[in-house]
C-alpha cells in the first residue's frame, strides 16, 4: 500500500494570544482530491501557509513524500513538489505571461537533481501550460491585461509549472461567476488526472462537493470533520458551524 503524500500531525499555530490552529491531524493520499472547508477565520489559509512554508508552525510536524519539512523554507518545499496558488492572485506584474511561468520552471524544475531544461524546452513547456489553461493567445501580454478568471488560471498555471506532486488551490474560484467556476473546475480535474494531488480550499460548496473525494472541515482552528463529502457536511458539528444552533 502506498503511504500518504502529506502527513500532518498535531499542527499548531498561534498569533500572540490567538490560537489559529490547534492539533491538526490530516493525511493526504497520492492522487487524492481533498476539499478543505470552513467558515471565514477558521484557519484554512493559515494551514495552507504553514504547510507551504509561508508561515512557520509552532508545534506538530509535517511529512511530505516521506520527508520531514518542518522549518524548511517555502522555495525548498516547492522544489520538493509542494505547490500552491494564492487566494488573491499574485502574478509577477512586470513580466509577461511566459516569463511568469518561466520563473518556476527555471527555479524549481531546473533546480531539481538531474533535471536541466534548455531555453527552448522551457519556452515550449510554458506555451503548453498556457495552452492548457486557454491563455496562449495572451502569452506576451502583461497580467494587467487579464480578466479575473484568466488571472486565476494564470495563478494555477504558474503553480503547476513547478511540476508539483501536490497542489494547494487556495480559493481559486473566489469572486467568479458560475460559468467561470466551471472553467476552473475543468482545469483542476485535468491537473488531477495528470497525477497531481489537489487540496482545494474553497467556499463555493457546489464546486467543493463536485470536486472532492474527501472533505476536511475546520472551525476555529480545529478539525471537526474528515471523511466522504456527503457524510462530512451532515456532521452535526459542521451543520452547527455553518447554520448555527
Amino acid at each position, binding site marked *: 500500500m502506498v503511504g500518504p503524500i502529506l502527513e500532518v500531525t498535531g499542527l499548531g499555530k498561534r498569533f500572540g494570544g490567538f490560537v489559529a490552529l490547534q492539533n491538526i491531524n490530516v493525511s493526504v493520499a497520492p492522487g487524492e482530491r481533498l476539499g478543505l472547508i470552513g467558515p471565514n477565520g477558521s484557519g484554512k489559509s493559515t494551514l495552507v501557509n504553514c504547510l*507551504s*512554508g*509561508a508561515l512557520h508552525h509552532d508545534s506538530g510536524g509535517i511529512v511530505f513524500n516521506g520527508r520531514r519539512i518542518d522549518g524548511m*523554507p*517555502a*522555495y525548498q518545499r*516547492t*522544489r520538493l513538489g509542494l*505547490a*500552491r496558488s*494564492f487566494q488573491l492572485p*499574485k*502574478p*509577477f*506584474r*512586470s*513580466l509577461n505571461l511566459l*516569463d511568469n511561468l*518561466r*520563473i*518556476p520552471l*527555471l*527555479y*524549481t524544475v*531546473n*533546480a531539481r537533481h538531474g533535471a536541466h531544461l534548455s531555453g527552448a524546452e522551457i519556452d515550449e513547456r510554458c506555451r503548453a501550460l498556457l495552452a492548457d489553461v486557454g491563455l496562449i493567445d495572451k502569452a506576451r501580454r502583461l497580467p494587467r491585461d487579464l480578466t479575473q478568471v484568466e488571472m486565476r488560471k494564470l495563478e494555477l498555471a*504558474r*503553480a503547476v*509549472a*513547478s511540476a508539483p506532486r501536490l497542489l494547494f488551490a487556495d480559493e481559486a474560484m473566489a469572486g467568479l461567476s458560475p460559468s467561470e467556476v466551471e472553467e476552473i473546475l475543468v482545469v483542476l480535474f485535468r491537473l488531477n488526472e495528470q497525477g497531481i494531488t489537489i487540496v482545494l480550499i474553497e467556499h463555493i460548496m457546489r464546486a467543493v462537493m463536485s470536486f472532492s473525494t474527501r472533505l476536511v472541515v475546520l472551525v476555529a482552528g480545529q478539525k471537526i470533520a474528515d471523511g466522504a463529502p456527503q457524510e462530512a457536511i451532515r456532521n452535526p458539528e459542521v451543520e452547527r458551524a455553518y447554520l448555527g444552533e
Partner: protein
Amino acid sequence: MMSTVKFWIASFVVSIAFLVLTRWLITNEYYFFAGYQVLQFIVLATAWNILGGYTGYTNFGTGAFFAVGAYSAVVLHKLTSLPVPVMMLVGGIMSGIIGFGMGYLTLRLKGVFFAIATLALAIVAQTLIVNWDYVGGSRGIYVIRPQHAPISGSYIQYLYSLMLALTWVSVAVARTIERSTLGLGFNAIRDDELAAEAGGVPTLRLKLIATTLSGALMGMSGAPLPYYVTYLDPASSFNLSYAVNSVAMPMIGGMTSWIGPIVGAVLLGTIQQLATVTISSALNLLIVGVLLILFVVIAPNGVVGLMQSRWRARIR
C-alpha cells in the same frame, strides 16, 4: 535580441571608440573632469538599480558604499603604491563585503524599514570614518596625485579612462543580469516576494547577491575619488547627493531596464554640470528634486518606461 556575449563585445568596442574619440577630439581638461562625474553617476545609478530597480529594495546608503571604496583607496595609498585599478578592485571587495553584511542583517526588513536601515548604515560608516585619524578623521586628508599617468595624457584623463572602463563593466553586468535567470528571480522578488518564494526562488540568497554586487560596484566607483578630488573628507565623500542622485537617476531614466540608469545619469549628470558652471553647484540638488517630482507625476516609469508604453500602444 543581442546575445550576452555579443553585448559585452559590442559595448567594449563602443567604449573603446568613445574613449579614443573623446581623448582625440577634446583638449580642454575640464570636459574630462565633467565626463568623469557623469560616468561615475552612471556606475552609481546602475549599481543602485541592481538592488533598487531589479529587486525593488530601496537603498539610501549609496554614500556609505561609495565612501568605503574611497577610503579603502586612501588606506592603500598610505600603505602601498598599488595602481588605481587594483585599489578599485580592493574598494569593490570591501564594499561588496559590507553589502553582503548589510544584506544579511537587514533583508528580512521590507519597504521603508529597509530603506531606513540603509540610511542608518551610511550614518554609522560616516561616524566611524570621522573618528578614524589614520584616514584623516573629520578634518579630511590630502592625497597627492602621481605626477605622471601610467598611460599617455594627464592624470585626470587616466582617471576618466578608468571610470569609462568601470562604466562598461557595470552596464554589461547589469544587462547580463537582466537577461538571466538571476534577473528573472530579481524581478519576481520585486513584483511579489511571497509568490517568488512559492515559485521556487530562493529570495534571501538572491537579495544577498544583489546587495553584494550593488555595493561592490559602488565601492569600485568610489576608489578613484581621492585622486580625482585630491582632498577627501567625510562630509563630501558621504555626501547625501550621492544617495539622492543614485536613487533619482534610475527613477528618471527607468528602473526596469539597464538602459534607464544610463539615460537618467547622462540627463541629470549633464544638467548638474551645466548648472555648476553657469549658475551654481548649490542648485544641483534642487534640480534633481524638481525633475524627480516632474517624472514621478508625468512618467512614473521613467523615460524608458514612457517609451515602452508608447511602443506597446503602437503595436496593439
